[in-house]
């Protein structure tokens, strides 16, 4: 005998669930489905969109990077290997 009230009654069938899951994954992938057209890239071209927009900040970051990570030359050209960061 079938139960009258069941959660199964309110769940879509398997292919639909797969479809929904796939759709959700695509949505959550965080990619632009319609990337901006070549003529719409004014905002992307702003200098504030650069990683190294702030010179002082990027210098400080570089300094911290090679000091803490002991990566002499790791963020650019090879270092001298003297260990004197």
């Amino acid at each position, binding site marked *: 005998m079938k139960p009258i009230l069941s959660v*199964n*009654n*309110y*769940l*879509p*069938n398997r*292919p*639909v669930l797969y*479809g*929904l899951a*796939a*759709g959700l994954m*695509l*949505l959550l992938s965080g990619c632009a*489905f*319609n990337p901006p*057209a*070549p*003529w*719409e*890239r*004014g905002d992307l*071209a*702003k200098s504030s969109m650069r990683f190294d927009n702030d010179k002082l900040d990027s210098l400080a970051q570089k300094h911290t990077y090679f000091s803490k990570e002991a990566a002499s030359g790791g963020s650019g050209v090879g270092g001298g290997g003297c260990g004197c960061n």
Partner: protein
Amino acid sequence: MNRARAMGQHLRTLSIAALAAFAGFPLVSHAVESGAVAPTVSLPGISATVSTSAQPGRWVYVDFWASWCAPCKRSFPWMNAMHAKYQSRGLLIVAVNVDAKRADADRFLKQNPAEFTIAFDPAGETPKRFAVKAMPSAYLIDPSGRVRWVHRGFTDADAAKLDAELDAALSRK
């Protein structure tokens, strides 16, 4: 049970629609290449409406530019030179600005004065119809309204080559 099936059907349609809307169909655009009939440009200019409908004896060089595009800036002195050189031979240079804000374009034009015709398309309808793939893009349109050639990007190395190509096109008629 019937209700559940109906709901399932409904969800199936919905999920297919969602998939199609978000993933399946990137903008299908047919780029305007040489030999194609060029879309007509009819846009507000600095003082009057700019239109590029086909006219006997008139060649149109349509260029798409923006204030934030560095190679576009490079092309401005060159376009001024081409305007001075080929205007008398029937060349109309129309530089379509695609900045979203008019103020950006005006500031650029103050720094880079243009002798040639400027048109404004903040909504981007014209570049969409041309299916512009790069900034800047230039289209040479012959008097019958067909695209003769397309040039994407601009470097100083292009200047002499494009000059020669313009000269050749205008003398062939």
